[in-house]
C-alpha cells in the first residue's frame, strides 16, 4: 500500500512543472522578466514588451496548458499563423496614422528605400551561415523593422522560423532607442544633427482622402503578394480621413487595436519556450536581426547625407534612420537625438515622412522578394 501511495505521488509529481524544469526555462524566464523590467523602468515599448515578457515567463513554466494545443495562447498564435492578426494590426495603424508628413514632403520618401540596406546584409549573412534562400529572405525582412510585415513574409517563406523572427523583430523594434542613437551619432557631425528643417506645407483634406485610394491601387496593382497588409493600412487611414465614420475609425484605432495587440504579444511571447528557443539557430537569427537594424539605420542616415549633396534646403540626416519603418518608434528616436543637440529642434513631424515611407519600403522589398522567390 505504501508503494502504491509512492507511485501515485510520483505520478502526481510528474504532472507538475517541477519535474520538467531545466536551466533553459530559468534563462527564458529571466529574459521575460527583463522585458517587463525594460517596459516598466525604461518605458521601452511597454505595449509590446509587457505582453511578450509575461507570455514568455508563462511559456517557460513546464506544464502550462495555455501554450498547448487548445490553450488560450495557442489560439492566439493561430491568429498569427493564419495571417489574420497582421492585417488587422495594419488596419489599426492606418486609423491612427496621419500620412500628412509623407504627402507634404514627397522627396523624403526615398529614405524609405534607403534605410533598408539592412534587409539585404542580413539576407546575405544568413545565406553565408547556411540557411536556405527562403529562410534567409525571411530573416532579412527583420531589417524592415515592421512586425506585421515580418510575420507575413515569414509565414510565406519559412513558417518554421516564425517564433524566432517575430521575437527578434519585435524585440529590436522595442529596443531601437538603444540601438539607433550610437549609429546615428557615429555617422553625423554635430552641425548636421543641429540642422533645422523648414515648416512643411499644409495638406488638404482632399489629398488625405485621395492618398489611401491611390496607394491601395498602386500596391494591389504592383505588389499583390503583400497587398493584404497595405490594403488594410489604407482602409484604416481612409476611415480616419473621410471624417464621416469616426466611430469606426475610433474602434479600429482604439478597442480593436488593443485587443489585437494583446493577442499578438501573447502569441509571440508564448512561442519563446526554452526548448524551442535556446538553439544556435535562434542566436544566429537574433544576431542577424541586430546586424540588419544597425545597417538599416546607417544606410538611412547615409542616404540622407547623399541627398543633402543635391538639395538647397538641407535635411537633417537624423531623419534618415526613421526610414527603417517601425512607426513611430524610429521617428521618435530621430526627434530625441536631434533634441539632445538643440532644444529648439523638433524633428518629429519631419521624421514621420520617411518613417511612414519605410512601411511602404518594407512592403515593396517584401513583395519583390516574394515575387523573385516565386511565392504568392
Amino acid at each position: 500500500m505504501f508503494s502504491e501511495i509512492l507511485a501515485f505521488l510520483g505520478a502526481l509529481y510528474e504532472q507538475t512543472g517541477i519535474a520538467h524544469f531545466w536551466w533553459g526555462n530559468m534563462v527564458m524566464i529571466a529574459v521575460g522578466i527583463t522585458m517587463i523590467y525594460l517596459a516598466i523602468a525604461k518605458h521601452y515599448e511597454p505595449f509590446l514588451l509587457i505582453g511578450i515578457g509575461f507570455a514568455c515567463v508563462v511559456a517557460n513554466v513546464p506544464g502550462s496548458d495555455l501554450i498547448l494545443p487548445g490553450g488560450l495562447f495557442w489560439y492566439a498564435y493561430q491568429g498569427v499563423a493564419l495571417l489574420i492578426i497582421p492585417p488587422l494590426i495594419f488596419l489599426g495603424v492606418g486609423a491612427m496614422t496621419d500620412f500628412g508628413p509623407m504627402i507634404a514632403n514627397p522627396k523624403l520618401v526615398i529614405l524609405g528605400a534607403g534605410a533598408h540596406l539592412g534587409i539585404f546584409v542580413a539576407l546575405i549573412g544568413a545565406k553565408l551561415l547556411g540557411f536556405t534562400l527562403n529562410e534567409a529572405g525571411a530573416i532579412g525582412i527583420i531589417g524592415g523593422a515592421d512586425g506585421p510585415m515580418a510575420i507575413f513574409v515569414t509565414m510565406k517563406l519559412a513558417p518554421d522560423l516564425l517564433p524566432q523572427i517575430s521575437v527578434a523583430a519585435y524585440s529590436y523594434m522595442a529596443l531601437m532607442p538603444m540601438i539607433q542613437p550610437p549609429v546615428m551619432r557615429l555617422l553625423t557631425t554635430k552641425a548636421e544633427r543641429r540642422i533645422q528643417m523648414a515648416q512643411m506645407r499644409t495638406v488638404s483634406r482632399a489629398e488625405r482622402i485621395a492618398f489611401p485610394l491611390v496607394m491601395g491601387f498602386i500596391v494591389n496593382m504592383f505588389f499583390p503578394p503583400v497587398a493584404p497588409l497595405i490594403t488594410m493600412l489604407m482602409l484604416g487611414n481612409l476611415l480616419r480621413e473621410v471624417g464621416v465614420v469616426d466611430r469606426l475609425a475610433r474602434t479600429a484605432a482604439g478597442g480593436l487595436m488593443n485587443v489585437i495587440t494583446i493577442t499578438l504579444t501573447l502569441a509571440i511571447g508564448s512561442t519563446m519556450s526554452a526548448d524551442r528557443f535556446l538553439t544556435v539557430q535562434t542566436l544566429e537569427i537574433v544576431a542577424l536581426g541586430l546586424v540588419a537594424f544597425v545597417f538599416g539605420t546607417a544606410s538611412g542616415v547615409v542616404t540622407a547625407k547623399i541627398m543633402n549633396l543635391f538639395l538647397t534646403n538641407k535635411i537633417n540626416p537624423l531623419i534618415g534612420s526613421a526610414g527603417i519603418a517601425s512607426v513611430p518608434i524610429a521617428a521618435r528616436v530621430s526627434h530625441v537625438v536631434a533634441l539632445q543637440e538643440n532644444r529648439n529642434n523638433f524633428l518629429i513631424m519631419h521624421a514621420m515622412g520617411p518613417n511612414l515611407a519605410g512601411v511602404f519600403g518594407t512592403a515593396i522589398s517584401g513583395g519583390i522578394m516574394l515575387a523573385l522567390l516565386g511565392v504568392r
Partner: protein
Amino acid sequence: MEAIRLPDTLQGAIILSIIDFFLSFVIIAGIGVVLSLFPLINRIGQKPAQPAAERDPAPTRPVAPDGIPAAHLPVIAAAVHAVVRAGHILRIDGPLPGSSWADQGRARLLAHAAGAASRARPNEPLAPPSGSTDA
C-alpha cells in the same frame, strides 16, 4: 513558359539583394513622383480665374480717409464711447505703428486705462484718454 528561379546559393542571395534593393528605390521614387502631383488635387472643383477684362467691377464702398470702411465707423465710435465715454470721435487711426516693446507697452497701458474706465462707476473721474483715439 518555365519560371526562372533563383539558385539557392550565395550568388542567388546576392542577385536577389541587388535586384530587390534597386527596384525598391525605383518604385519608392515613383511613389514620390505620384505624391508630388497631389497638390493638383486641390485644383479640382476650383473655377478657372476669369480674365481681368471680364471681371465685374469691384463693388465700391465708401472708405474713410484712413482706409477704414465707412460702415465700420459707427461701430468703432460706439465701442469707443462705451469704453472711454468720449463725447465726439474726431479721428480714428489704424493700429499702432511698429512692434517694438515700447509700442506694445503703450498699447497695454491704453488697454489698461480703457478697461479701468469701463469698470468705473458713472460719477467717478475717468482716466484721461490717450493714444490713437482723440475725443
